[in-house]
């Protein structure tokens, strides 16, 4: 048996969102997918990509926060994740400057 007093926080304890919360998140994700497909049918010109990426980013937020549980993890996990996302963003922006303004 695991003694929760002795494990000093190194043994994970269940603190997951309920079934209901997860199903709500899933419904949100499905609705956002439907919205993405619907919006792609409209002619938004240059904004099409921006809107599609924005919706994809919102969906990722829900997957990472709730399904991947990052919302309930230690601060260190969040810092690492933000750091890595910044690296990807920096690489993208720098490449974009080169490609777009060549």
């Amino acid at each position: 048996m695991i003694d929760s007093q002795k494990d000093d926080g190194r043994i994970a304890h269940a603190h997951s969102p309920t079934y209901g919360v997860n199903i709500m998140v899933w419904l949100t994700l499905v609705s956002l997918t439907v919205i993405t497909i619907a919006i792609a049918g409209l002619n938004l010109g240059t904004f099409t990509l921006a809107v599609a990426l924005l919706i994809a980013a919102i969906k990722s937020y829900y997957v990472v926060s709730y399904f991947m549980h990052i919302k309930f993890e230690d601060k260190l996990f969040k810092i690492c994740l933000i750091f890595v996302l910044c690296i990807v963003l920096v690489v993208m922006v720098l490449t974009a400057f080169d490609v777009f303004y060549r």
Partner: protein
Amino acid sequence: MSTNINAEAITNLSHQEAHTEGHVHRDDYGSKLGMWLFLFTELLLFGGLFVLYMAYRHDYFPMFQLGAKELKIYMGGLNTLVLLTSSLTMVLSITALQRKSIKGSIFWLLTTIFFAFGFLIIKFLEWSEKYHHGLFPKAENLLNQPEGVKVFFGLYYTMTGLHGIHVIIGILILSYMVIRILNGKVTPDKFVPLENAGLYWHLVDLIWIFLFPLFYLLH
């Protein structure tokens, strides 16, 4: 109950722990952190391919649109729903295990694997249709297309292919988890391996969330 500990405390603990008899030798915090570090390398792997996509899309945009016309939105959309739902069943499997329902956990895990196969079958149907239209690498029909269309399909097969490999690996990992739960190695008291397997599966979903609009929704 708190999992709120800092890195320094962990290092101090590992020294103390060596002298504590009967202590559980397990580091769920470290195991999960390790999984996340691995996921970051995956993020950078796909990130690199997305950078490539961005550059080529800029150079060949009209031909990318032409290439995307060959992809069926409803197939991609259906696969998005399949993956999103499999992500939900994955989470339900973890929640069930934490609530001490072994049967429930295995049921949802098998559902997840079922959806994973569903994704692969839809992907297979898509690819075989492309094959019949002569839209595969080195196909004569594709070689006669403009440069940008070739690049589009090159990226399409590389990125969805790499993603597909991840789905297959995901199936293997999830099946292994079924065995571990049945053997009593992953239990309601020790669910972090299942959580880590879940993290991998959600990453697969996460990447598809970006692949779908970037390849299928290019009007």
